[in-house]
């Protein structure tokens, strides 16, 4: 959906970089619209807008955010475009922010539409576009606005770890979450937060699936240069204590916890390449 709409939009609208070189839409992109508020929040200023809610963005790596309040064709919108410090950070925020997508999905399409909100990520950008009415028309306009942003920001996707690019994950890849710190864990995976207590510099990829034998959780932890190597053993012990079966390859720790038990976990670990 996203690409086809983007091409269509480019045929009819122009776009320019405004709001501090952020790829936000202009009035020209949205004929007849009124942008009643436009602000850019740089660095710590995000705290002034959303208080502690900003911490999640800082945890992933935040650069700036452009806020617009838009009135267009009788509908009202609140656009928040976050420029993160890396495409991974943008994808991570997106992956833990989307839920119940009526159209789209985190990994397959890179966007997500539901009644009141349209979200997408592209390159270093994460877009949250809220409409206040929840009408069909508002949703259609949301996609139009989102497409302007996607096009202007290059419509760039992040590469998932090779493990999750295998065909076996194709049907469930939209369930994937990417997290880079304890706040993200507490928000998105609270039942796993205690595993990472006291640890720093890691990226967590998580996917959960349910088949005929019950629930299976797959947890890939990529450790960074500042990850305490001594803490690594402690972390793996915690995994074991929590019922995960884990294996390590270089800076990746892959853990599996399935309803069928450790024998099944080991079987799964044998089936999945860590790369």
């Amino acid at each position, binding site marked *: 959906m996203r690409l086809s709409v983007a091409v269509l939009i480019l045929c009819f609208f122009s776009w320019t970089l405004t709001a501090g070189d952020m790829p936000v839409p202009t009035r020209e992109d949205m004929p007849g619209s009124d942008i009643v508020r436009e602000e850019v*929040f740089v*660095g*710590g*200023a995000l*705290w*002034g807008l*959303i*208080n*502690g*809610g900003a*911490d999640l963005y800082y945890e992933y790596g935040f650069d700036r955010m452009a806020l617009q309040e838009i009135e267009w064709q009788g509908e009202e919108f609140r656009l928040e475009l976050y420029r993160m410090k890396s495409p991974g950070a943008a994808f991570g925020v997106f992956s833990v*922010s989307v*839920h*119940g997508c009526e159209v789209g999905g985190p990994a397959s399409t890179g966007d997500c539409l539901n009644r*009141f*909100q349209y979200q997408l990520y592209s390159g270093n950008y994460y877009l*949250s576009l*809220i*409409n*206040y009415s*929840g009408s069909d028309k508002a949703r259609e306009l949301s996609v139009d606005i989102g497409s302007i942003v996607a096009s202007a920001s290059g419509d760039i996707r992040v590469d998932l770890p090779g493990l999750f690019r*295998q*065909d*076996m994950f194709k049907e*469930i890849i939209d*369930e994937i979450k990417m997290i880079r*710190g304890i*706040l993200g864990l*507490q*928000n998105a995976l*609270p*039942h796993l*937060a*205690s595993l990472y207590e*006291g640890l720093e510099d890691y990226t967590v990829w998580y996917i*959960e*699936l349910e*088949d*005929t*034998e019950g629930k*299976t959780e797959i947890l890939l932890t990529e450790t960074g240069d500042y990850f305490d190597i001594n803490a690594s*053993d*402690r972390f*793996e*012990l*915690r*995994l074991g*204590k929590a019922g995960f079966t*884990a*294996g*390590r*390859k270089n800076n990746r720790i*892959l853990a599996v916890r399935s309803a069928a038990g450790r024998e099944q976990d080991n*079987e799964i*670990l*044998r*089936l*999945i*390449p*860590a790369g």
Partner: protein
Amino acid sequence: MDKGRRNFFRLFAAGSLGAGLSPVMAANLANLTARQPTATNIADALKYPRNENSMPGRYPGRVVRIVDENSIAEDVIQEDAVYEMLEGGIKNLTEETDTSRAWRQFVSPGEVIGLKVNPIGGKLLSTSHALVKSVISQLEQSGIPKEKIVIFDRRMQQLLDAGFTPGNYPGITIWGTEHVDESGSYYDEKGKLYSLSRIDRDWHYWADCEMDYDDYMLPFMVNQGKYSYFTKIVTRQLDKIINLPIMKNAGASITLCLKNLGYGVITNTSRLHSTLWAETSAQVCAFPPVRDKVVLNIADGIRGCYDGGPGANPQFFTDYRMLLLGTDPVAVDTAGYDIIIGKRIEMGRQAGFADVGLRQMLLAEELGLGIADRERIDLRTAGR
């Protein structure tokens, strides 16, 4: 997730590659050491003797949950219905038959009363005007004139954005610690933050952690370092405080009575979020300017959210259509926690109740601020 999904791994087993993984070695569980807690000055707070107003107040463990399906009609919060809910709730809580007598259990003529609202969600999802105006109206009927009522929060701009303006509340003082002038500046003509004159350096919450703030962030933090100062509005200007949070989640926990106070009355808060989130919510409430002045908590659950909090994402809004009232902020938070997290579970945002979400209430209970044990909470449900 499709519950009837075929066996995922077996289907693909034939085409899969070898693992190339090294099994994690078993090791001595004794190596699993607990993280050292970050030190704070909570012991200082506990030295001050309690008084009759100290949390958990007149009714430890008592929570009134008052529901009205008509509190929202055609997507609009109905002030008349909220007024009646508040009236019914305060009478139920106090077991008084007269509304004014019920309020007079907590406030007296001549006192300056602060209403601690939560305006973070802007016009979308802040403490509702229907509730705030109902509280003001019933306070006035109970002998508290408008000039003795203050609506306050840490952040002036957010109060204004959410509609807590002099125009909407004539005669009521609107007060933000992080003051912003009419030109939008946080600095006075001498280049000094307005907020520096609004904090009380005699009262502080010390914690052994700090964070550097950039120039953009400093106006919202007021100061750096290991000290968080209390705002003067609570230490010097108010006699009593009525806490008016809104029912929101904060990840797998909630932002309700304790959080609204803990993070709403001190400076330099960002440093506390990552390691002392729950501790701050509980411990700040144990300092006398908060512990001994907050006499009533009314959680606004007419419209709240179950995800995306403390921000405001409409996809996660939900019409709880209720108020929770109590003098005991810990009990109100525990009751609210069960409702909000229950909704998160129902909507698939988390798998089950996670202990981490209860931590702020359990810590507050240890500090004697109220009751978190559900067995000891007297939850009274009323309404239509």
